[in-house]
């Protein structure tokens, strides 16, 4: 076939197509409608038979839990795991607040470190032998050193304490105050140390760690003036005349801290108003020496001598 023939063929086709476009021949409306109606009917069937799109996850059929067993398990175990984790994180915060036991007769985990620390403080105070205020201002003066009780300031030193090794460093105002106050609960000590007290950062951290681990007993509650805690411990059967290693009763510690409410509680619950510590210091003597008139009056009404 030559190019001329090809061109003539194409011209013929073009002429035919132009002519065909003028032809009004068309299927009847009925046929057209029937075809389109059939197409819609088939399209509905085809659409109904289409599988679910693979990209989207199948719907969650809650009416058939067994069919969704794996997802139920994930949900259930996930929730339980989250709850357990939350419990493990929160529980220790509540546990450490619970009363340890009814062994308030035992001093609250007085570790050797604290005993050593206390003895050092006491020794330093003994060497000071100055009034509390002066002791705070003038930390160390061996010439004026006087024996002192653990919870008593120099004026309260009723008799000389056993010789103690000299303090390696001069006690600060805060530590001296602690000594004069008669071993207040260490709860305060850590806080004071963190506010710039004499304790070094390491000592403060150690104190905080110790305080966090130290169980609360009646002695510490009494000294801290924690009436609610003291009431709880007494209600649970804690011995009201429990003594620590220095023979101090909760009443003595409460008097030393001028905790009038706790003193009233202890006396009401049968605490011995005349129970003296190992050094022979009685609550009434302590109150009078510190000029705690309300406490002294309360003690006297309870029979203190």
């Amino acid at each position: 076939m030559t190019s001329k023939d090809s061109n003539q063929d194409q011209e013929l086709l073009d002429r035919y197509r132009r002519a065909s476009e003028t032809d009004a021949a068309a299927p009847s409306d009925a046929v057209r409608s029937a075809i389109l109606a059939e197409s819609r009917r088939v399209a509905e069937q085809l659409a109904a038979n289409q599988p679910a799109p693979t990209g989207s996850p199948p719907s969650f059929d809650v009416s058939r839990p067994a069919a969704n067993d794996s997802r139920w398990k994930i949900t259930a175990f996930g929730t339980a795991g989250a709850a357990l984790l939350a419990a493990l994180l929160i529980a220790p915060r509540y546990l450490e607040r619970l009363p340890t036991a009814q062994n308030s007769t035992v001093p609250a985990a007085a570790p050797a470190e604290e005993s050593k620390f206390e003895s050092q403080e006491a020794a330093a105070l003994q060497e000071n032998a100055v009034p509390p205020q002066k002791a705070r201002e003038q930390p160390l003066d061996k010439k004026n050193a006087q024996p002192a009780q653990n919870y008593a300031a120099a004026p309260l030193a009723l008799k000389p304490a056993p010789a103690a090794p000299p303090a390696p460093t001069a006690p600060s105002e805060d530590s001296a105050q602690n000594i004069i106050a008669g071993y207040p609960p260490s709860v305060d000590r850590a806080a004071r140390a963190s506010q710039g007290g004499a304790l070094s950062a390491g000592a403060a951290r150690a104190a905080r760690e110790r305080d966090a681990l130290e169980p609360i007993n009646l002695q510490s509650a009494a000294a801290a003036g924690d009436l609610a805690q003291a009431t709880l411990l007494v209600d649970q059967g804690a011995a009201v005349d429990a003594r620590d290693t220095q023979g101090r009763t909760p009443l003595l510690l409460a008097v030393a801290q001028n905790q009038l409410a706790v003193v009233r509680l202890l006396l009401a619950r049968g605490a011995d108003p005349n129970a003296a510590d190992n050094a022979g210091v009685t609550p009434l003597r302590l109150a009078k020496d510190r000029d705690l008139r309300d406490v002294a009056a309360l003690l006297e009404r309870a029979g203190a001598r």
Partner: protein
Amino acid sequence: MSLSQETDENLMLRFGRGEAAAFEFLYQRHESRVFRYLHRNVRNEASANDLMQEVWFAVVRGAAKYQPSAKFTTWLFTIAHNRMVDMIRANHRLQSLDAGDDADPEGSSLLDRLAVDGKLEPPAQVQSQHEAAALLAAVEQLPAEQRSAFLMQAEGGLSVEEIAEATGSNFETVKSRLRYARAKLRQLLWEYA
């Protein structure tokens, strides 16, 4: 992509997924050409309408299994050709579509003779000086298989290979039919122009 921009094959695939609108686009695109192919072959409007419905019903019902392995128009005109042959056979107007297929490249088979029997004289409109009418009338005067091949090419845009596939004929036979058809059309146009 909008439906109007989709290829025939993609429209069929979308219809196979249940989009009725895709089929409507496809139908509108090929309605006239298919109908003209049928109408000019059978030269009877009622028969053409029947065939038209059968052809498109076959397309619709075959959509679920449609695979675009070939041009949609090839498939469409294959269906149209086969339905047309079936109708002729059913009307006892055909003893063998392929009789003399290879023996007579001009397509003067029994189908040809039966289908156009008594209608070989030029119709009145052929006398018209109007070129379009003359050309269309000339097409109708072609032998059936030549006409079918020519209409597949002219209306459906099918190639020789595609026509051979659609009609079940070999390539050279289709090529000969087309050549004879064009020659006769030129002669008729010259005579009635």
